[in-house]
């Protein structure tokens, strides 16, 4: 019965020129955005792999020099792109995907095509996620608005209602028909994207990507069901298909275009972040306080002399310069932890507001999930930034320890390949899907709530159909 209803909806749609045009437009946009995402992904991953190799080669190929010079020489670390970033580039264009690691400094990430924008979580250019989560729902609403209202106007609704079809079957059938129409557009594109992903994946990340891909597919499906439910409910409730259309366009406009901007503004004002210049100024003030540095050095000196039970720095069995460099690092790290911690906490809070804003617009919950699954949300940016920073600190400690151990007062000290190769190459393991979804509990709950609500509304409206037949 459900299948029969769905098939009839699909047959009618496929014979409707307007539907075919609409489907073609969505198809073209979806293919274009997937292709653009794929090109971007392959180009960027190739560049990254190359740059990563180069930075390593340059590091290992350094001539003999003092380890501290090497520390200033620095290396790049790149955030590996998940294949799903083809679909959702998320915040990567705003937050960057590479970080420069050098002595004394925790850096912000680089390569931010959207550098000039200030607020985090502003929607970027047309990427796959936007086609999927903004345009496809519009398509769904354009398909669903006449489903009941149009049948009422055509008079077929009376015929239909005279048959004694259970409302829940009617809703399920019409919903299935709508989703089948969506599938007609989405499935070819998804297949294309899957092939592109497989093509692009020379190696590693694919296994982890499968579960994320499935979860992303499920997210889209649930969101489409929500939109379909709303569409059917409004179509059943509306006195005319014109009213249904206007109402649904209003819903789409409010939830897909207005809500994200409002959510961004609300998140920003609830959890404000300093602009780059302010942040830098505050950081610098804490980092290079001459009085603090003087006291810290004096304290380090006293402690070291006591520890080795000697009276002058020259009598130390270790190079004091190595110790003082590391002490400077330790101090810097504390300051970085405080400043970046505060900044990143604010961004995390903003992202959380965004998930809660899903209560007002299911799109926000769905988008939050899609970015998270694509590995391009803030939490995974932070996860990477932490790993990269830990790597930087390891490098510094290795080099400073080497100075402390090997440098002799009054003599130049040069280290070589042996030391450089003692610094391991940077490796990064993206967090598991459990880790990711654990941080999306709000979005998941909110989306499930929307699904329940939309389903209940559609059912309720269909139950009332016969009474409102007029």
């Amino acid at each position, binding site marked *: *019965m459900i299948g*029969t209803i769905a098939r009839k909806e699909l047959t009618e749609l496929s*014979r409707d020129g307007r539907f075919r045009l609409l489907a073609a437009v969505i198809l073209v946009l979806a293919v274009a955005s997937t292709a653009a995402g794929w090109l971007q992904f392959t180009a960027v991953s190739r560049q990254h792999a190359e740059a990563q190799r180069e930075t390593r080669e340059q590091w290992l190929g350094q001539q003999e020099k003092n380890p501290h010079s090497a520390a200033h020489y620095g290396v790049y670390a790149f955030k590996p792109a998940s294949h799903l970033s083809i679909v959702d580039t998320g915040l990567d264009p705003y937050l960057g995907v590479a970080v420069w690691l050098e002595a004394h400094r925790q850096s912000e990430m680089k390569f931010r095509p959207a550098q000039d924008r200030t607020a985090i979580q502003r929607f970027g250019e047309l990427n796959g996620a936007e086609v999927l989560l903004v345009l496809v729902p519009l398509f769904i609403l354009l398909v669903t608005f006449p489903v009941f209202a149009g049948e009422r106007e055509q008079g077929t609704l009376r*015929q239909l209602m*005279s*048959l004694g*079809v259970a409302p829940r079957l009617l809703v399920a059938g019409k919903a299935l028909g709508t989703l089948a129409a969506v599938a007609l557009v989405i499935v070819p594109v998804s297949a294309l994207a899957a092939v592109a992903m497989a093509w692009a994946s020379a190696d590693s990340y694919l296994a982890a990507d499968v579960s994320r891909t499935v979860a992303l597919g499920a997210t889209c499906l649930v969101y489409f069901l929500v939109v379909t439910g709303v569409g059917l409910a409004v179509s059943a409730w509306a006195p005319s298909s014109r009213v249904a259309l206007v109402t649904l366009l209003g819903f789409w406009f409010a939830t897909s275009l207005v809500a994200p901007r409002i959510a961004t503004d609300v998140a920003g004002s609830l959890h404000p972040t300093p602009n780059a210049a302010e942040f830098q100024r505050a950081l610098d003030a804490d980092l290079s306080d001459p009085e603090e540095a003087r006291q810290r050095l004096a304290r380090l000196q006293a402690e070291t002399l006591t520890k080795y039970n000697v009276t002058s720095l020259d009598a130390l069995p270790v190079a004091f310069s190595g110790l003082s460099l590391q002490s400077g690092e330790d101090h810097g790290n504390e300051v970085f932890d405080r400043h970046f911690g505060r900044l990143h906490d604010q961004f995390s809070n903003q992202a959380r507001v965004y998930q809660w804003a899903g209560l007002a617009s299911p799109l926000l919950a769905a988008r939050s999930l899609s970015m998270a699954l694509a590995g391009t949300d803030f939490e995974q940016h932070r996860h990477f930034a932490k790993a990269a920073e830990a790597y930087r600190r390891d490098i510094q400690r290795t080099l400073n320890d080497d100075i402390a151990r090997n440098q002799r007062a009054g003599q130049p000290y040069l280290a070589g390949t042996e030391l450089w190769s003692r610094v391991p190459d940077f490796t990064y393991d993206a967090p598991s899907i459990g880790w990711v979804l654990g941080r999306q509990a709000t979005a998941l709950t909110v989306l499930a709530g929307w699904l329940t609500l939309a389903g209940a509304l559609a059912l309720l409206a269909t139950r009332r159909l*016969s*009474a409102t037949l007029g």
Partner: protein
Amino acid sequence: MLEARHLTKRYGTTTALEALTLTVSPGEVFCLLGANGAGKTTTINLFLNFVDPSEGQALVNGVDVTRAPLESKRHLAYIPETVMLYRNLTGLENLEYFAALAGSTDLSRGSLLKVLERVGLPADAADRRVGGYSKGMRQKVGIAIAVAKGARALLLDEPTSGLDPKASNEFSELLRQVSGDGVAVLMATHDLFRAKESGTRVGIMKRGRLVALHGTDEFSHADLERLYLEHMHD
């Protein structure tokens, strides 16, 4: 098969139907006559549970239509003044869809075509889209849906108004066949001639009340017309 018990429907202060009590048995064709606004459509809407009664009950096969709206419709078929179909689907596809939703199981192309043939739809029309159908063809598809459904009661609301005499005659002929199979028919109509021809009983309604009830074999056509006009007069 169809039974109304003190069936009453009020819209605000107007009483669209007042305490209608009526039984239509299998094989009977009951014709509701009456001026516009007499309450004929209201009666049919009440049997279909499209509107809720203010008082009384409508029963189909002994089942109260408000208590079991889905079950009561299992035996019903409805043919309005113009049978509304999906214009982008063919006649056959429309029949298949409605028959499937009505719960009939034999949906093979062969048997559906046979039903269409039985109701007299031109053979080449079955695979044409309904958008180009004449009203007579639509009414035939309506009967075909009822036949495919295996309906045991038929509710018709002025099904022949606007049909040309030939189409109207064909329709009445179909109706006679269907009722010959033991279907109870309740038909609202303005066509006294058709009522006399294909009806077994007529009821005359006036301002929501059934004012006369007679077997069609009691009168000639002229008598029926006189009776009708007498009741309309005042």
